[in-house]
């Protein structure tokens, strides 16, 4: 498809600041992915919710098993903190399942970004507006749709994360990341629309009050904190020992640490071997690894944006991304046989869950089979 001649102006009017990253196009509307409603509902939406339910079953199992928590490299000092958050029923806001899907056969889970997913604003708002405009100017036929009620679901979910609502919500991310700040700014906008008293503070500004609570840069106590900052880092930093006594409700909740870990992939396969939406996966060193296909992927337990992931075929490294992760161990997973690919690129689907309900889709393309932080965001639509 031809991009809108003024696409930069159009996306910037929405406040989309990172459509170009390091001089490379990130928002790419020269291509769009078309789905049928059947494909969305049968192959993306239903399996996403089924995977989420399987994940919940796994959390129950993991929290009762010191062996699994050890395998997931979660520090023992935080096990009770995690268990309590699950037993209390701390609500979750959102997550993104990354799926391989080429329109033939079931989608396969590549990984679950359960804790700190980004690409949210462009999924929720920018591609929505793109579709409206594409239909208005006749570039797409009238009556097209999109798997994307993210905006509505986020506002509704934010209002219900804590009782009584409205409540005060702090939101935080690291300094010096436009992408993270853009994501948090958007969620803050949604929080205000949910009627919440929303306040931003950078992770580095968070302080500790004499009564054990965390506070923001203005010394305001933090009672509820949306943190676009991974649990595995919070668990290992100076304030780690203050988490459990902070009386703070965290979003995502601590139990998401069980899911935002690539060990999950091996554990799910162990629970449900031959599940249609899972790929065979084992912890590295497990003798069952020898049963994996010759083309498989080696992933660190903790890794972000493709870092330290290696694609191997018959012992040869085909593609890898360097990075700082891997100290906690690795899993091996069969390469997805149904990753959408063309001569030019590969595409990975991101299936969004808000409050554990599947309600949105994003597509990211990359020149290599490993989706990295250099991948391009491509809009999608449902055919009329």
């Amino acid at each position: 498809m031809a991009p809108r001649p003024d696409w930069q102006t159009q996306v910037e009017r929405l406040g989309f600041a990172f459509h170009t990253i390091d001089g490379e196009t990130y928002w790419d509307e020269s291509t769009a992915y078309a789905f049928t409603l059947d494909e969305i509902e049968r192959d993306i939406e239903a399996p996403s919710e089924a995977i989420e339910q399987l994940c919940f079953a796994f959390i129950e199992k993991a929290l009762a098993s010191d062996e699994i928590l050890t395998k997931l490299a979660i520090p023992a000092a935080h096990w009770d903190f995690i268990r309590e958050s699950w037993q209390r029923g701390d609500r979750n806001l959102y997550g993104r399942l990354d799926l391989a899907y080429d329109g033939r056969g079931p989608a396969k889970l590549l990984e679950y970004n359960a804790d700190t997913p980004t690409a949210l604003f462009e999924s929720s708002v920018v591609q929505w507006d793109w579709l409206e405009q594409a239909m208005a100017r006749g570039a797409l036929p009238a009556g097209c749709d999109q798997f994307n009620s993210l905006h509505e679901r986020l506002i509704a979910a934010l209002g219900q994360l804590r009782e009584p609502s409205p409540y005060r919500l702090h939101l935080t991310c690291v300094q010096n990341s436009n992408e993270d700040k853009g994501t948090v700014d958007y969620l803050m906008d949604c929080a205000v629309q949910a009627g919440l008293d929303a306040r931003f503070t950078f992770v580095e500004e968070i302080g500790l009050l004499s009564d054990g609570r965390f506070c923001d840069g203005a010394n305001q106590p933090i009672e509820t904190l949306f943190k676009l900052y991974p649990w595995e880092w919070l668990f290992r930093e100076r304030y780690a020992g203050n988490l459990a006594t902070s009386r703070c409700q965290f979003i995502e909740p601590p139990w998401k640490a069980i899911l935002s870990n690539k060990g999950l992939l091996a554990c799910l396969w162990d629970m449900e071997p031959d599940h249609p939406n899972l790929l065979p996966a084992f912890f590295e060193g497990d003798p069952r690894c020898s049963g994996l296909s010759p083309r498989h992927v080696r992933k660190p337990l903790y890794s972000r944006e493709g870092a330290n992931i290696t694609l191997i075929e018959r012992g040869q490294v085909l593609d890898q991304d360097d990075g700082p992760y891997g100290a906690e161990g690795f899993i091996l997973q069969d390469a997805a046989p149904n990753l959408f690919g063309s001569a030019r690129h590969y595409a990975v689907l991101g299936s969004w869950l808000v409050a554990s309900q599947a309600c949105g889709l994003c597509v990211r393309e990359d020149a290599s089979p490993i989706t990295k932080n250099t991948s391009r965001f491509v809009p999608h639509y449902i055919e009329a």
Partner: protein
Amino acid sequence: MKRSTQIGLAAAGVLLVATYWGRSGSPDQSEDSLVYNSLAECRAGGRLTSTQCDQRFREASANHLRDAKKFTSTSACETEYGSGSCQSAVWNGAPVIVPALAGFMLARSLAQGGGAAQPLLPPTRQAFPPGSQAPECQQARSSSGGGGGGGGYGGGRSSSRAYSTTSGAALVARSGTASGVATTSTTSRGGFGSTARSYSSSSSS
């Protein structure tokens, strides 16, 4: 429809409403936001006929009285919606105080046909604390003062006007920056963020 019906963004000051395309219907091509502050603004807009504006405004007024939160005193209402933002009315034969009708919103494609107009209320003080320095808040407060049966709220067409809905959600609004006074002391700062500093790649995914 599997997508959101409308998207409001305070930071960008936009309110986008999805076009619902019937199988054979022809779309309304206008890009205008169909939020009107008053009957006069609707008529002046030229998008709807004068009769349609009257009808939509009557609907919004009726829904306003039905859906707006009812108070027994002006002060209780003003505590929530701000000074000068409330009006008296009669509901089910009893006198009540309600936040004034600040405007009404139409789903774009429903403007010509069916579909009720949604009443909009003044922004809540919670979303727009008095004394806040945020420009939207100042605008919201200074232009506040509806009152009168179905009076307009707000002045000129601004890209960042604030409302709330009868269900209590803020629409096109920015939160205040006023901070409370902490009674405890801060014993330390900077206990989080060290991993991000030691890694060059992103903390998100």
